[in-house]
């Protein structure tokens, strides 16, 4: 299995606070990987480093066998943990705007997703509930024809129905095009059965990584492994 991402000896600290501590990990191409760890494990910093929003002090990041570079961002859809969009836009305006600024954005596909997720195109972003705003942000990522999708805490703080709709969309997305998807989470939620590979982080370091089915065979459910590691 070729890898989409090769992280080697990556270190990043903010002042005296260490976010990534000599982290080495790899992420297989064409699979959904769960990036799991408690708050402060370094998950968000790692994703930001991949898209160049954070500059590591040490180490290297390889993206599809190339050193990380801002030009590669055209091939990456990144959902930040606190994503925001222009409040004055309607959903329709947001999608049209995305078509102009996001490389590989597929508008017909986005409209189909909005329909599936019961998003009203004429509603203002400013009036959306957290769950519905999360649905919009997921569409802005998954409607792009890109090789790599990075989702930082996509299930955090939203209602059950929105979480389930997002899972449906992820399944559709995997069916429609081969993609590498990273999902960071500090809870396992309903996404566990989507993971094919899992990377556990703690205090900026790798704790455990492996094929999800092999881990289930050896140690049980991903959720129980998580509890065992961080109890």
């Amino acid at each position, binding site marked *: 299995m070729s890898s989409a991402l090769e992280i080697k000896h990556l270190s990043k600290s903010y002042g005296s606070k260490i976010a990534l501590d000599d982290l080495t990990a790899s992420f297989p191409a064409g699979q*959904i990987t769960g990036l799991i760890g408690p708050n402060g494990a370094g998950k968000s910093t790692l994703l930001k480093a991949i898209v160049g929003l954070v500059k590591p002090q040490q180490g290297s990041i390889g993206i599809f066998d190339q050193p990380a570079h801002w030009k590669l961002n055209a091939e990456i859809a990144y959902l930040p943990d606190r994503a925001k969009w222009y409040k004055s836009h309607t959903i329709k305006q947001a999608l049209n705007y995305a078509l102009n600024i996001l490389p590989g954005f597929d508008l017909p596909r986005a409209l189909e997703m909005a329909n599936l997720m019961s998003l009203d195109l004429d509603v203002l972003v400013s009036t959306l509930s957290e769950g519905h705003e999360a649905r919009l942000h997921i569409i802005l990522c998954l409607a792009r024809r890109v090789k790599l999708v990075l989702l930082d805490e996509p299930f955090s703080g939203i209602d059950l129905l929105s979480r389930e709709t997002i899972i449906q969309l992820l399944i*559709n997305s*995997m069916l429609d095009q081969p993609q590498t998807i990273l999902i960071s989470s500090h809870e396992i939620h309903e996404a*566990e059965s989507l993971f094919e590979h899992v990377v556990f982080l703690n205090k900026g370091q790798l704790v455990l990584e492996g094929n999800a089915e092999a881990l289930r065979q050896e140690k049980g459910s991903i959720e*129980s492994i998580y509890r065992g590691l961080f109890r």
Partner: protein
Amino acid sequence: MDSIQVGDFKFRLDLSKPLYEQVLQHIRQTIARGDVLLGTKLPSVRDLAHQLKLNPNTVMRAYQELDRYHLTETRRGQGTFITSDSETVELVKKALAREAVIAFVSSMKNLGIDRSTTESLLKEVAWHE
């Protein structure tokens, strides 16, 4: 996880075991028991992935394995169908029975029970409830 009915198949998935093997095993057993007619179409990968909230790659892997044992046949653009060959189904049924017997024998061994005692216990057991 509660049991979920998808088309003619019923699934109950346990997240503490490999998911692909469970999908494979559920379908093999349903076919071996004769709960579905030969030649029946399996649920599409899309439907099964959605209903069971599984990664489509996991479902596809199980379907490829069924094809490999000739228990199903995937027709391009039409879907995956259970074989119409009853001999293949009989072979799979025997293989599943053998697996069950091996598991049974190993649990008897774990209890320290020998072959002759096991055989006499088997004769005593009531088959009809």
